[in-house]
């Protein structure tokens, strides 16, 4: 087969955006659950929210915003035919992702250390609204964390493709779509952060 590989830049981008819209609806469902249960258990949610560490939440917000800046700059770099800079910027994003997960690790292990995890004896003995709050907290930040891990791995693979030149100034849709995925991770966190760490 000697056909030139089929390329469809606009189609590839449209496909990525359609996927991102389903992701928005997925997280939208979790925010809806949060809103309904906040209405039902306002006091228990307030008590739960005060146990979350807003300083760690803020640190992770700054880390994710910075990671998003790096990956957005890497798209500019590849468009301007600066592949080395693009790789360095994606590496910066991955370092931020690792930083985010490290903070998350300390946060979760402190909570679990205090006996706060889904199905724990502590939560079973407490008010039902509190266990709902922490179940939602673990589910939402857990699925978000999974997206951080997947996004980091994806960007690592894309960076290696930039390094070998398969992704370049004429053919960069892979990096652009990877960056879009990463921005979605940031976008979701922009809403998780105030809802769980600040307003309660």
């Amino acid at each position, binding site marked *: 087969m000697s056909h030139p590989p089929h390329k469809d830049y606009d189609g590839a981008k449209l496909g990525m*955006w359609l996927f991102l819209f389903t992701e928005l609806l997925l997280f939208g469902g979790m925010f809806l659950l949060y809103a309904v249960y906040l209405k039902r258990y306002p006091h228990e949610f307030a008590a739960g929210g005060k146990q979350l560490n807003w300083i760690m939440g803020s640190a992770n917000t700054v880390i994710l915003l910075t990671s998003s800046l790096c990956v*957005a700059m890497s798209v500019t770099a590849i468009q301007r035919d600066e592949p080395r800079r693009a790789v360095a910027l994606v590496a910066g994003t991955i370092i931020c992702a690792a930083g985010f997960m490290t903070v998350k690790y300390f946060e979760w292990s402190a909570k679990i250390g205090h006996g706060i995890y889904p199905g724990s004896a502590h939560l079973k003995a407490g008010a039902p609204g509190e266990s709902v709050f922490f179940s939602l907290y673990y589910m939402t930040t857990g699925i978000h964390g999974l997206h951080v891990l997947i996004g980091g791995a994806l960007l690592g693979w894309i960076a290696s493709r930039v390094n070998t030149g398969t992704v370049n100034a004429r053919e960069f849709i892979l990096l652009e779509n990877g960056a879009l995925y990463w921005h979605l991770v940031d976008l979701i966190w922009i809403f998780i952060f105030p809802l769980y760490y*600040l*307003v309660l």
Partner: protein
Amino acid sequence: MSEEQHIISYRKLAFVWVALLALTALTVGVTRVELGAYKVLAALAIACVKGGLVIAVFMHMKYEGRLLRWLLFLTLVTLAIFIGFTFFDVLYR
């Protein structure tokens, strides 16, 4: 590949990043003072502005064609409908 590929300058991206950090500081500040229910509203309003900046500039939506913009609009309307209609039930049951 589109010929009219728009390239966003590093400067502009950095500017948006600074704006996002400033808005984050504002959210933290607003929610540390006691405003009651208004702080939820204020925090969500700021989050929407931040989300808008990320989508428009970082995700290049500002420079995309009509199709993607309409699809984004459709998604947000769908979200608003399923959150809004659920609340008709939850609030006035």
